[in-house]
């Protein structure tokens, strides 16, 4: 008997059993008597100390979960989820069911509104000097900073300029080297996380590296079982632990195209080896594979979703935040979280923090999302694209976002560089909201010239320096640098 037959047989038997029984009259649950409550506590105590620990935990579950408003089904979802949140919020084993209706499910901030801190940092310095229709900028989705913060990787392009990478001295702006790399995508060239002098990229079925000073190439790892390695359509930079998530593809000989069903390789850049796994979701159509700083968690973008997978257990949880920009950040308690930026109207803010939480080998799903900067903090939605970068160092929990548009735009955040510092996690519970401070600064990036003039941003691992691109309302784009050690 195959699996379907066994399951269907069990289902049929269960249906017959239930159909045979009468339906009891509905009796809404009422308040539990004191005696029953005492009995419940007694049984809980008998069951064990671990159980006791669970039932005495209090209301730190009552947090923001993010869903799309406005649709009927979404309204149902909000209400349904809120019903459960209400239970948890009232659930320090109180015997009474709450009489009042739970709070409305409008998306709201879970943190006390952060107060903009006075600016206390250096003035930005223009680091590059591009000509008309020339764009020199940090790449989106990966760090411009090398492993010891001594060099920057920028790319130089333009309508009539052959794209190339430039290694730049962050102190002087001097171009140390120009690199012509045969990567799958110009934006999929990364600093080697363990070697401050090397970049890495994928080429056919190999992970390649280049010493940026000697210009010598080397094979970091080769995978004969794959025809092509990709880090998907969007950048998938390596983690600071020295691991990189890539997809292994085979050609389909019948169509001479890439076959579906790509597998996932977690490449150890130090050893040149990889562990192979099933792609958590999708079959190669994923848009980004970004490992957390530890290499333990994988964030995978799939359309408007971000799926987070614990690589050890395979546990998955997902965020539906309308296709945000995202980056991993290390929080003050050492845990890993996703910093997200979005400009979409259905998301609750500009800068968000999603902190995955485990129960045993499962994620708590849906993941709690805190609004760090958003309408509830007195900020309006920006009208257009937001780029984000977060530090992955452990000294600072810092997130930097840039919002596209002229500083005089139609939102207080338009054309702003937003420097957010997570100063702590307020309470004892893992789910307690973070405390944050933030500062803003005009970056004058008006996005006058299309994609290449995007206001990409990159903060170093220590969270002390940031570079970003701005067209300053002109027809060329340059990279600017700012010391933010004293910000916030």
């Amino acid at each position, binding site marked *: *008997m*195959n*699996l*379907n*037959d*066994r*399951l*269907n*047989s*069990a*289902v049929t*038997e*269960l*249906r017959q*059993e*239930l*159909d045979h*029984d*009468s*339906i009891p009259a*509905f009796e*809404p*649950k009422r308040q539990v008597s004191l005696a029953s409550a005492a*009995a*419940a506590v007694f*049984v809980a105590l008998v069951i064990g100390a671990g159980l006791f620990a*669970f*039932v005495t935990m209090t209301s730190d*579950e009552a947090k923001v979960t993010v*869903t799309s408003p406005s649709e*009927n*089904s979404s309204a*149902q*979802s909000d*209400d*349904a*989820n809120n*019903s*459960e949140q209400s*239970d*948890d919020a009232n*659930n320090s*084993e109180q015997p009474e*069911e709450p009489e009042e*209706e739970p709070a409305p499910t409008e998306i709201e901030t879970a943190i006390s509104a952060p107060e903009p801190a006075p600016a206390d940092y250096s003035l930005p310095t223009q680091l590059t000097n591009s000509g008309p229709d020339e764009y020199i900028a940090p790449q989106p989705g990966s760090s411009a900073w090398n492993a010891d913060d001594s060099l920057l990787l920028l790319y130089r392009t333009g309508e009539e300029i052959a794209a190339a990478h430039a290694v730049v001295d962050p102190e002087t702006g001097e171009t140390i080297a120009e690199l012509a790399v045969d990567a799958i995508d110009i934006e999929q060239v990364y600093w080697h996380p363990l070697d401050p002098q090397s970049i890495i990229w994928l080429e056919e079925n190999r992970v390649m590296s280049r010493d940026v000073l000697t210009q010598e190439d080397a094979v970091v790892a080769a995978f004969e079982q794959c025809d092509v390695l990709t880090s998907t359509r969007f950048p998938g930079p390596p983690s600071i632990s020295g691991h990189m998530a890539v997809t292994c593809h085979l050609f389909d000989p019948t169509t001479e195209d890439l076959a579906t069903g790509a597998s996932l390789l977690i490449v150890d850049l130090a050893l040149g080896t990889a562990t192979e796994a099933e792609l*958590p*979701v*999708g079959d190669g159509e994923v848009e980004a594979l970004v490992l957390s700083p530890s290499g333990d968690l994988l964030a995978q973008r*799939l*359309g408007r*979703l971000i*799926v987070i997978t614990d690589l050890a257990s*395979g*546990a*998955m949880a*997902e965020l*539906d935040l309308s296709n945000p920009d995202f980056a991993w950040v290390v929080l003050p308690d050492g845990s890993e979280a996703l910093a997200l930026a979005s400009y979409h109207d259905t998301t609750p803010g500009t800068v968000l923090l999603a902190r995955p939480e485990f129960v045993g*080998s*499962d994620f708590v*799903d849906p993941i709690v999302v805190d609004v760090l900067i958003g309408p509830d903090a007195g900020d309006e939605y920006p009208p257009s694209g937001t780029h984000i970068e977060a530090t992955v160092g452990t000294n600072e929990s810092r997130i930097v976002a840039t919002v596209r548009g002229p500083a005089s735009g139609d939102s207080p955040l338009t054309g702003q560089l937003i420097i957010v510092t997570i100063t702590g996690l307020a309470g004892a519970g893992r789910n307690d909201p973070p405390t944050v401070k933030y500062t803003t600064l005009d970056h004058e990036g008006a996005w006058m010239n299309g994609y290449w003039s995007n206001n990409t941003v990159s903060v170093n691992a220590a969270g002390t320096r940031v570079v970003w691109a701005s067209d300053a309302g002109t027809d060329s784009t340059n990279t600017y640098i700012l010391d933010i050690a004293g910000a916030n």
Partner: protein
Amino acid sequence: MNAPDSVKLVETFDAYYRRDYRRLLGLAYMLSRSDSASEDLVQDALTEAHRKWATVGRYDDPGSWVRRVMINKSTSRFRRIRTETRGLIRLAGQTQHSIDPSEPNAEVWEAVRALPTRQAQCVALHYWEDHSLNKIAEILQCSTETVKTHLARGRKALASTLATHEGGASL
């Protein structure tokens, strides 16, 4: 004078309760550890629905809402403990239904309950409720891709546990 409510309730709570109770109980049974716990879970979800029926009853499919509440309750770490605890208290002959599956089928249910939470939910909603991937995704508030993945993995794990063939997908 207030304007009359413009949306007509299509079904009374009582009618809904009678129509959907058994299916909810079966779903809860697949996801719970005991008869009493599953009854308690259903009662909890239906109590929520009853309290909010003026709103929930207007939904296109109130059953989806109730299932989501029930699944949320079943997966809440607090709720799971509380439900099991209440179930223990109520055990003394108070359960309305005593489900006693045959040996091979009991083995199937044990295997389903041993799956990771999301996989078990997807398997239960697919096989017990006969829901499509889209409907399961709507109830669980995730993508159909995720449902597909959980279902495939759940089936694979069940086939391994039950030492049987997976058989063809009936999606």
